[in-house]
């Protein structure tokens, strides 16, 4: 009996501390001050000479999904826009009609999901111009063309240009911005990677599935924080800045069919003030 008791106490003496040890070991502890992280790429700013010609562009965010039968109709409407001043980003809705078909590529992204939740998207297709929440475009989006043209007539507050250089799964982006007018509200700059000519299944309006549907402007990565990186500027007219940011790209992204989208937003309202897209220039490796 005594042996059994000693054995049992030994067993429990191991089990109980073990459960506590397991508890400490299996429970992640986040230190205070580290509850939040910025996992976007850092932008470094330097002053620059004022040399840009102001061009007002329009940022169009469209939420789509492979199981959305009306999305091809919206794609067709938006494909009639050939103005290079229109910067388009297609975001895969995270649930429901945005779910990928089995065996098909998953185009959902963390950044796209955050933006989708912020808008409160509950049906697709849906689109917004310059993150202006006052007008949502649904269905065939026949009314969006006129509003895009209207937005292009606005005089720019800030001139914005960018160039991108790629190679070995890395992209370096140079951002040039210049205040045309005073704008002293805090700004953020967002850098995103968008891929074209992606071929995967898409539900069509007649409820058939087109396995060779070509998807363009698909958001693949938000390189900065999802709500952008702070712009280190005073905001007085004439001020010019140059920002540099570099980021890595997952291997499933075809950089040769991708381009970089950069947009400036008011930090408080998140409205987009100006934007630009640029192709990626591939640097030739020196031997």
């Amino acid at each position, binding site marked *: 009996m005594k042996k059994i008791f000693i054995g049992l106490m030994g067993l*429990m003496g191991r089990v109980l501390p073990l459960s506590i040890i*397991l508890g400490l070991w299996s*429970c992640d*502890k986040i230190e*205070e001050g580290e509850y*939040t992280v910025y996992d976007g790429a850092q932008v470094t700013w330097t002053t620059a000479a004022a040399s840009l010609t102001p061009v007002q562009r329009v940022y169009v965010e469209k939420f789509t999904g492979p199981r959305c039968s009306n999305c091809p109709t919206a794609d067709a409407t938006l494909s009639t826009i050939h103005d290079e001043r229109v910067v388009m980003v297609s975001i895969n809705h995270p649930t429901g009609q945005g779910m990928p078909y089995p065996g098909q590529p998953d185009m959902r992204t963390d950044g796209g999901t955050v933006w989708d939740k912020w808008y409160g998207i509950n049906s697709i297709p849906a689109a917004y111009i310059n993150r202006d929440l006052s007008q949502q475009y649904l269905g065939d989006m026949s009314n969006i063309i006129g509003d895009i043209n209207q937005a292009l007539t606005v005089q720019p507050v800030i001139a914005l240009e960018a160039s991108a250089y790629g190679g070995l799964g890395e992209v370096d982006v140079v951002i040039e911005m210049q205040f045309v007018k005073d704008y002293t509200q805090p700004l953020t700059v967002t850098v995103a990677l968008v891929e074209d000519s992606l071929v995967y299944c898409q539900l069509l309006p007649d409820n058939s599935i087109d396995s060779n549907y070509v998807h363009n402007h698909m958001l693949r990565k938000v390189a900065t924080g999802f709500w952008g*990186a702070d712009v280190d500027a005073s905001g007085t007219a004439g001020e010019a800045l140059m920002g540099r940011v570099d980021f890595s790209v997952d291997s499933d992204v075809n950089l040769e069919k991708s381009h970089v989208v950069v947009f400036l937003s008011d930090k408080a309202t998140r409205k987009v003030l100006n934007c630009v897209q640029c192709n990626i220039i591939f640097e030739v490796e020196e031997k």
Partner: protein
Amino acid sequence: MIKRIFTLALLAALGSTVSAQGLLGGHVTGNVQMDGQMSSADSIIGAQDVPEKLLMNARADVLYTNGDFSAGLRFELYQNPLLGFDAKYSGQGLANYFVAYNGEKLSITAGHFYEQFGSGMILRAYEDRYLGLDNALLGMNVQLRPVPGVTIKGVIGRQKIFWEYGEGLVRGIDGEVNLNSILGFMKESKFRTTLGAGFVSKYEDDEVIPSSANPEMRLNLPLNVGATSLRADLGYGNWSLQTEYVMKGQDPNAINGYVYHPGQALLLNLIYSQRGFSASVQAKRIDNMGFKSVRSQSGEMLYINYLPAITKNHTYAFLSMYPYATQVNGEQGLQADVMYKFKKGSFLGGETGLDLHLNGSVVYGLDTTVTGGAGTEGYSVNSGLGETLYGDVSVEIAKKLSKAVKYTVTYAYQVFNPVVENEPGDLHHNHIVVADVLWKVNKGHSLRFEAEWMGSDSHYDANDPAHSDRRAGDWIMGLVEWNIGTHWFLSASDQYAYNDGIGNYYNFTVGYTSGATRLQVGYGKQREGLLCIGGVCRLVPASNGLTFSLTTSF
């Protein structure tokens, strides 16, 4: 695929001849339940039309046992779910399956299983068909009993949610030792001691959740969240004390607003019991103990743990009209309960004796200071009491007037804060009186009469969101129930809001019982409200029409 293999294997084991007993030396038992509902619109009580005309929940459980081996499965059907059950239940199929070995020192279950560690505050996988709740774990459950009085449990699995499984992985270990069983000198002792400890951890993949304070930042989420329990069950003579303390690591989730404040809870239950008298005092304090296997899940599904309620689970209609729903983010409360039997021949007992039952409970929120939103510690807890959430006192007297007639009279006073149902509005103060008389007319025949009254300072106003609760106002109710022989019963009841309220809820029910089979058909109006069992609640919407239920077992 696994389900199909399992089903085929089970059917093969059962053989081609299905009968209740004697299969391959084993034993087959089961039960079937079908509940149907038809409802049409009624704007006064808020009932909606049912487009399908007929809704049905049904289930069939089959259990095969053969010595230490058992296997079971459950088929469920929701075509479509009854009103108040989540539409995600829609469908039919195999909802539960398992195989198990249950030996003297070892038990193993593979498949779906239900389990509880201690009082359930760190782990309780359970099912309640009336709440529409089934958080069974699909995985493995191993229990070791190396010697009498010692139990060690280990579980791993994913939680069921409707027809799918949550992405979070749940692991747990629990040990319990009854010292009276393993210590020779305590075998005959009046001291009874059982000690236990458990640990549960859940793992979930990372996801992007923006910080409310700093939107360009995302939360640095703990992927492994653990909860530990220490408990003791002590007894001496007529006294017993059950206590459990649990703590939970940082667990930012949708219920707590994604804050990093750690969780903890304490449960105490002191009981004294002797022939004809019992008394108990229960105390509970909860701070941020909502523990789910999927952090973004709100509602009642995917809870890993269960936080026991310490308010009385009333059964009479008006007493249970405002049930208390446990506030997992924080509450503290007390309950006291006394039962006393006045003996025959005593001053109050008279010729037949008298039963007295007193109960009182009060629940407050925590006194907190908010320090931030998502991505912060969230709040700090002060030592005082928060807002009043719930309170009730009740006095129940039960007495036999003769061999044939027994009555029960209850008075209760309730204070109810709509915030526990996430609704706006002021505190409701309710006085309730219930009289219940049972008359055994002759052998096999009995009549039961019930009369209830509730006076409340609340009122109903369809145009004011703060007063849109259809339970508000003053109510009366009458019920007659007639049991005819051993097979039939009839009942008729009516609840009527006669002042400051709305609605007239009449119901007629007829039932027939034969052996293990029972059929019941009802017609009438169902009041909108919460159905709560043990502090866990389901919203029952108003309905107007026919209901029927068939249950049988074999």
